[in-house]
């Protein structure tokens, strides 16, 4: 393979990763890392460096549209971000003291369970049942967005802020320890515990993963893990893909987004279980 062929191919594949990542609120690392290491035989260090850039590219590429269309709940994002970053800091300190193997098994099971629960409520846009939410009332987290697929404004209430904070802390610890899967835990936490509509959950997760990844990306850059030759087509492709994906999110039906998310989540949980069981 010549450098030119690599640039074109990596750009095209990253474009697809950007569409999927921006729709589902995941970083796209689940596509970028295996493609770079297995297909292009690139060193894992540079693959991880390019993947962290792709997380930021997904987030920033999509965020401009999501913030404008009020799909992202900025207040929820900031409240939860406190827990996520604290979790990531704790995770970085715990690294080496906890066996990765058990974490893979535990979180593989958590993700599998979340996927089943999300599948269970596949036909709901907003949970109608009223839940008292003193924290969300106090922090004024309730909001609304315009759903283009349904052609109407969707009002929603945020519930169980404290449970959400605890889950986000856990998601942060896992991403600090294992360096993966923070979006895959954030979306179910917002969807299942805090009762956010699925579109708001993926858009808000998208915003958050970019913010968290930016701090680690600075460190990766100074360590020399971000090879511009590898990261350039990935970043460009993902930005273009994420821009397209962010246009799609408004138009697509919540049910479809939920089903695709459930499928991807099941796949990630299976991968984690296999890694855990193999030791």
């Amino acid at each position, binding site marked *: 393979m010549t450098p030119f062929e690599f640039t074109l191919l990596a750009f095209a594949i990253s474009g697809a990763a950007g569409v999927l990542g921006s729709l589902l609120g995941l970083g796209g690392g689940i596509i970028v890392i295996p493609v770079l290491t297995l297909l292009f035989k690139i060193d894992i260090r540079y693959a991880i460096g390019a993947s962290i850039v792709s997380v930021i590219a997904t987030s920033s590429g999509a965020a401009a549209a999501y913030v404008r269309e009020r799909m992202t709940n900025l207040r929820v994002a900031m409240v939860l971000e406190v827990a996520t970053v*604290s979790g990531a800091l704790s995770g970085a300190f715990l690294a080496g003291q906890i066996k990765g193997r058990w974490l893979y098994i535990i979180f593989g099971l958590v993700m599998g369970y979340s996927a089943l629960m999300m599948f269970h409520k596949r036909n709901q846009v907003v949970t109608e049942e009223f839940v008292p939410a003193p924290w969300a009332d106090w922090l004024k987290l309730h909001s609304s967005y315009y759903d283009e697929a349904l052609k109407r404004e969707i009002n929603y209430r945020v519930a169980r802020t404290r449970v959400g904070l605890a889950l986000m802390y856990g998601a942060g610890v896992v991403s600090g320890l294992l360096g993966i899967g923070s979006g895959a835990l954030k979306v179910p936490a917002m969807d299942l515990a805090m009762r956010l509509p699925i579109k708001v959950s993926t858009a808000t997760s998208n915003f958050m993963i970019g913010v968290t990844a930016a701090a680690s990306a600075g460190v990766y850059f100074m360590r020399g893990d971000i090879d511009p030759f590898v990261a350039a087509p990935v970043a460009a492709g993902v930005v273009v893909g994420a821009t397209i994906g962010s246009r799609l999110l408004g138009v697509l039906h919540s049910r479809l987004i939920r089903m695709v998310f459930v499928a991807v989540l099941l796949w990630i949980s299976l991968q984690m279980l296999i890694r855990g069981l193999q030791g």
Partner: protein
Amino acid sequence: MTPRSKLSPVPVDAEDRVRRVEIIISNLLRAGVLGSLALVVIGTVLTFIHHPEYFTSPADFERLVAPGAAFPHSVGDVIQGIQLWRGQAIVTAGLLLLIATPVMRVAVLIFAFIYQEDRTFTRITALVLFLLLLSFFLGKVE
């Protein structure tokens, strides 16, 4: 105060302020992303202009992605490389701009909450920015 704005949970002018802030953040993000995309594309094109052998030589691909491949990874290297019009340095500048956008977004959000006179969220957002900088510096020490 008109009686109407007392009744509605969010006064109209406050909602208008929120909306204006959202538009500013959205535009800032778009500018950051487009700027970095432009730098990455220009740098890549320059790289291929300077090295026409990259179109044909598989050996060069091996070298470019091999562990320990030479490329700028300090801000000083990047600035020096840009002055020499080196493609990879311009790409790296674009990647750094991309990495900086989410952090700038949080910083702008702090001002947005100050503008909305929302003390609680000004503090929460400032705490997020502090934690981000802390994890960046702790990671650097490692």
